[in-house]
């Protein structure tokens, strides 16, 4: 007898909180739309184009003959089909891994030199960031279709999935700790459940991306790296199989939507 009013009261307060949360969510969506409308992301694409065409390294050649999977020099739609298996390297590669491959093989640069500063700052964005912006932009409109058929692509997907759910480190986090439950957020940031296609698709279709909070262009390798930082883990090696496996798992899960990045994030 006594319980009923309490429940009604509780439900009532839940409903009000729900309504407030709903309007906050709509306002944040509006904010995200507005920042995307006035994003400086094209400036990164422009700089990336200049770097793509700039002769560099001992070979004094540009990256214009780099094969991103669709043939030497084919940019259009190439990003949308990454990560994928590359026979010449006998491994699955994401965008940055493949760019690095072209820098070392075509341009004759050392891996150390080419990876000296892969994540830039607001004052000095990195070569990888500019190039990622340019190459990704050339896939606008192309449906995301990463490699998922070759045995090594399947292997990368399977490993990525295990890593996604594996809890580790001093805080016992996995990717799923934050990206595992529908409708949750960290502070005001909505958290997509990246193991579900519906939530992964818009994410996959908009990375890499410009981040307005620190005026930096962020690559997918950075995204994985920074999640592990926040998970209080050690640092993953740049372009390691582990990072590519996670990106493969996320991209395959979220494939199918036309690419509309590089995106703009809060």
């Amino acid at each position, binding site marked *: 007898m006594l319980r009923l009013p309490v429940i009604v009261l509780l439900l009532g307060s839940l409903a009000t909180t729900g309504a407030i949360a709903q309007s906050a969510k709509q306002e944040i969506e509006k*904010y995200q739309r*507005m920042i995307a409308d*006035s994003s400086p992301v094209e400036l990164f694409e422009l700089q990336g184009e200049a770097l793509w065409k700039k002769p560099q390294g001992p070979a004094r050649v540009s990256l214009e003959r780099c094969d991103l999977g669709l043939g030497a020099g084919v940019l259009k739609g190439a990003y949308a089909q990454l990560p994928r298996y590359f026979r010449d390297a006998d491994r699955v590669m994401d965008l940055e891994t493949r760019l690095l491959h072209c820098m070392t093989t075509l341009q004759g640069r050392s891996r150390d030199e080419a990876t000296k500063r892969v994540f830039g700052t607001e004052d000095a964005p990195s070569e990888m960031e500019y190039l990622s912006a340019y190459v990704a932009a050339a896939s606008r409109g192309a449906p995301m279709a990463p490699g998922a058929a070759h045995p090594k692509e399947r292997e990368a997907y399977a490993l990525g999935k295990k890593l996604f759910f594996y809890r580790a480190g001093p805080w016992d986090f996995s990717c799923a700790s934050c990206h595992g439950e529908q409708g949750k957020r960290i502070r*005001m940031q909505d958290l997509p459940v990246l193991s579900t296609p519906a939530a992964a698709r818009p994410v996959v279709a908009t990375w890499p991306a410009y981040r307005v*909070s620190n005026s930096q262009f962020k690559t997918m390798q950075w995204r994985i790296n920074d999640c592990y930082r926040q998970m209080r883990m050690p640092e993953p090696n740049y372009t390691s199989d582990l990072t590519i496996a996670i990106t493969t798992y996320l991209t395959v899960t979220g494939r199918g939507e036309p690419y509309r990045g590089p995106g703009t994030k809060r």
Partner: protein
Amino acid sequence: MNRRITLKFTAALAACLLFPLRAIAAWNKEAFQSKTAADALKGLGVGASTESKDIAIDAPQIAENGAVVPIEITSNLPNTKSISVVIEKNPFPLAAKFEFGEGALPYVKVNVKMGESSFVRVVAEAGGRFYTASKEVKVTIGGCGG
């Protein structure tokens, strides 16, 4: 390489030749260096102003980040000459003043920084009078904060 330098030089020269003098108004140091909204308005020469529904401000009610807050302003007042943007709680509240000549519609969209949640006040000058409207923007915290 040579061509690049020539191009750059030509562009720089062109910039100097085309814009040798300051245009209509020089940067209003007094107004921009004011630390309160009231002083900024005084510096702009804004005396009495009337609240007006003919100034439309489109800005997010909640900004996930204060580094970039998009603000879109349209004045529907006839003969709008200028639009000024004052962010009341910023250390230097005056953010921008736009003057519209013949050939420009009284509309502007700009991204501004906001140190904290604040009212954004817009002052439009039309027909020799000042009109004003404002909108509150809440600045929140987006991510993990680490």
